[in-house]
């Protein structure tokens, strides 16, 4: 087999194997009791992205240099069926992840493109907001890389000025936390975990945690702001009901459980967010340490890769 093809198979196969092992680990940890605990949004996101990010890190910083430095040149060898199957599955996962992210990017761009010539700009709470005139009470941060806040006229008319400012402060909190970019990474994540229920659980819990954190950052624990945001949530939820009556084709009722939990949380005395078990700095240090720690193990890693290449032959 051509050495370039073999290198491609090795990279894809080892990525698939690493991501598979890490996905299994995440499923085990989650089902072992972590799902019952109050976990912050950072930890949930790290768990969700661990298989793909870990797989990529190991392949690019450990497997690739080990293979290039120890593989004899000009040597042709055959790949075993296990490596081929792993490589094919990885390719499929990467292609699906790429497709999902392209779809997400295209949809967001399309919405922003249509909002471009329509509506008007307003400045609320120091944020530029595109306001469009449609029947749905839509307020959102749209887009991954350069997110923009879009609101509809009916939200402005339903809310008082103070309430609308809190709504925009909530969306601005999403922008500053780069929640949409994180969402794009979750959507694109090419791993075996995406095909399990744990991935859906982790994503749902991460979204809910991100919403609560955005509420908290927007209101800065000020009771007046908390009440204003709670009132706005109820008004937007009510407006969804009205929009459904206006437009029977729209079958998207509001998630009352989502609104209820957030309103009750906003009206209760503010409690501190769950302590951070994982810091972004610690994750970055681990990511830097892995390639350094693997330097003396290149020969061993190469032997393992060779065993994987020949497995099943």
């Amino acid at each position, binding site marked *: 087999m051509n050495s370039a093809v073999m290198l491609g198979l090795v990279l894809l196969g080892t990525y698939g194997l690493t991501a598979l092992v890490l996905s299994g680990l995440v499923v085990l940890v989650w089902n072992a009791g972590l799902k019952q605990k109050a976990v912050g949004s950072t930890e949930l996101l790290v768990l969700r992205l661990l298989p793909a990010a870990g797989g990529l890190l190991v392949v690019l910083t450990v497997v690739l240099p080990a293979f290039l430095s120890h593989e004899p040149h000009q040597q042709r060898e055959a790949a075993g069926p296990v490596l081929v199957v792993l490589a094919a599955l990885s390719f499929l996962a990467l292609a699906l992840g790429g497709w999902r992210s392209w779809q997400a990017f295209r949809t967001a761009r399309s919405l922003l*493109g249509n909002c471009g010539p329509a509506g008007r700009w307003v400045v609320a709470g120091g944020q530029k907001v595109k306001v469009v005139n449609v029947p749905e009470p839509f307020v959102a941060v749209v887009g991954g890389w350069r997110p923009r806040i879009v609101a*509809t006229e009916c939200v402005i008319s339903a809310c008082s000025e103070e309430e609308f400012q809190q709504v925009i402060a909530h969306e601005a909190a999403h922008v500053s936390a780069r929640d949409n970019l994180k969402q794009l990474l979750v959507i694109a994540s090419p791993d075996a975990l995406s095909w399990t229920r744990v991935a859906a659980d982790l994503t749902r819990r991460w979204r809910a945690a991100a919403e609560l954190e955005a509420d908290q950052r927007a209101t800065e624990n000020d009771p007046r702001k908390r009440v204003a945001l709670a009132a706005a949530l109820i008004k937007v939820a009510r407006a969804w009901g009205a929009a459904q009556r206006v437009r029977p084709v729209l079958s998207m009722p509001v998630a009352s459980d989502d609104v209820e939990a957030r309103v009750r949380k906003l009206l209760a005395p503010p409690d501190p967010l769950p302590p951070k078990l994982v810091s972004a700095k610690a994750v970055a240090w681990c990511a830097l340490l892995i390639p350094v720690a693997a330097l003396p193990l290149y020969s061993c890693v190469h032997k393992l890769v060779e065993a994987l290449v020949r497995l099943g032959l």
Partner: protein
Amino acid sequence: MRHPQREKVGITFRGRGSGLGPLETRLLELLWVEKCALTVRYLHMAFPDLAYTTVMTTLDRLYRKGLVLRHKHGRAFAYQPRYARDRLLSELISGHVTDLLGVSRESTVVLSTLVRAVGRTDTALLDELDALVQAERSRLKLGEK
């Protein structure tokens, strides 16, 4: 400009949710400004930086999306907007919002909405929550006094 052989098109809004490209938007903007049917040749004069065929293809795409009407004007086609500007843009965005918040699309869309629209509206529950908000507001006002 007269429209002697106007073609019949379906009344459904086929372009809904499909979005408009930048060139489609530019052409539609010009058609809205001119308020009459325009030929490709006329529109091309307004966009000299574009190839004639590009203008023609884009107008044909708008026609297939159901966003413009076209009729024979001599040997050429003349195009005019099918919807008023505000109505079309509002419909497009509304269609997008519906698509974006649809249950099946929720996991594959890059947006953070204030309220997720995936459950069931419960008016009684919203009334109860509203009462709680009013009570808290009154409590805060009393505290300020």
